[in-house]
């Protein structure tokens, strides 16, 4: 019979982890918190692209990604839609991307322009919100209910994790000591935990950004890059292990490793939930 479209495969219901690997975006379904590795498949074939960051919009069930070979941001429905570019100009090296599903906007870091930008999900109403004191901005996450944005800059001279409101105001440094290469960052609204994975200190650490109660969850990580969370687990991609690794947040222990067949670096990672978390923020109101 005819082969299915090789570039777009629909995603079955349930929660999935989406990760970027050498010219494609793959997914592995979660059963509870366990990765169903035998069901891992390609979601999107993007053979000429180098995909770095991935984000998921739980409302329209779309995946968004940043890409550096022809620098751009694109999106596609996870139910088998065509990939479509949304940002293609005035962008040099987009890396991290995050979606505020409440106000229907996306935020991204550009490591060559050294800035953080926001735009509506179709690419319109674009605006630079941070363009100072950035050297190697990479990971970025948002907390739609509270209206906060968090990002990490792996500048080797002075790495830091920062926070601001979603319009770039009220900017402040959350962490600057004992950091190396904070490549991965993830935020869980339910527990108000911001967690990061560092490829130089080899640590996984968390804090409540409002309390400055920083603590180490795990050390001995090899080379974390992307990061996501779901329920009790944190997940990160690792450049040395070519794997997605699961860590239990409460026991601080690695619970699982998934190494895709193809042995090559894994980049961005995000969780695609079957339902959005409830909430509303001020951007969504006006």
């Amino acid at each position, binding site marked *: 019979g005819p082969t299915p*479209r*090789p570039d777009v495969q629909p995603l079955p219901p349930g929660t999935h982890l989406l990760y970027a690997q050498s010219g494609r975006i793959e997914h592995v379904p979660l059963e509870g918190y366990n990765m169903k590795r035998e069901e891992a498949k390609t979601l999107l074939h993007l053979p*000429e692209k*180098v995909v770095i960051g991935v984000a998921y919009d739980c409302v329209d069930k779309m995946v968004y990604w940043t890409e550096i070979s022809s620098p751009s941001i694109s999106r596609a429905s996870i139910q088998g839609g065509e990939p479509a570019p949304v940002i293609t100009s005035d962008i040099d090296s987009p890396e991290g991307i995050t979606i505020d599903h409440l106000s229907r906007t996306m935020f991204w870091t550009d*490591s060559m322009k050294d800035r953080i930008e926001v735009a509506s999900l179709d690419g319109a109403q674009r605006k630079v919100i941070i363009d100072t004191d950035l050297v190697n901005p990479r990971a970025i996450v948002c907390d739609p209910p509270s209206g906060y944005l968090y990002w990490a800059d*792996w500048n080797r001279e002075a790495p830091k994790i920062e926070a601001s409101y979603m319009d770039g105001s009220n900017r402040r440094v959350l962490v600057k000591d004992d950091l190396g290469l904070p*490549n991965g960052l993830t935020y869980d609204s339910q527990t108000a935990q911001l967690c990061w994975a560092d490829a130089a200190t080899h640590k996984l650490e968390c804090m409540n950004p409002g309390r400055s109660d920083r603590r180490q969850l795990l050390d001995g990580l090899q080379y974390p890059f992307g990061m996501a969370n779901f329920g009790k687990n944190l997940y990160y991609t690792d450049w040395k292990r070519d794997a997605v690794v699961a860590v239990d947040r409460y026991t601080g222990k690695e619970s699982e490793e998934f190494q895709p067949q193809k042995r090559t670096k894994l980049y961005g990672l995000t969780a695609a939930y079957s339902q959005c978390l409830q909430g509303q923020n001020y951007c969504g109101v006006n």
Partner: protein
Amino acid sequence: DATKGTAGDCQPCPCPSGATCAVVPKTREVVCTNCPAGTTGKRCELCDDGFFGDPLGQEGPVRACRACKCSDNIDPNAVGNCHRETGECLKCIYNTAGFFCDRCQEGFYGNALAANPSDKCKPCACSPFGTVDQQTSCSQVTGQCSCLPNIAERDCSACEPGFYNLHSGKGCEQCKCNPIGSTN
């Protein structure tokens, strides 16, 4: 297309050995879906991020994928360090530039290939008063800025002996001191 019923319905994948392929229905384009390690692209003709080469020899002889060659002036934690086909370095650090990050950026001087980053490229920092057209660039090697008349120093920051008024913007003027009443 196996449904036509002719001998040529199924053709081998136009991919390197071991790779599988599929047809995009809309365009009928054949793409490889499982390229050998280190390669990617519709025909496995591209190298992974951080590597460059021409694994299928599309532009000449086959060049296997190898790590970006950027004179130790890139950061391994960065992405997109070099062009995947040509190898041109795209993310030079330590104020270096050039195809292989092998020279100093405009406005910097020194030896881009020095072993120690602090010995690599230093800012020209030409004096705005003493430099022709207030240029910010200098000799790549010596760091000499191009000075206005009668101005000395690498960065054109001082008048030559016997001259004054560095801030004139036109070079320094002779002191014209009376030889009888002056001590030097």
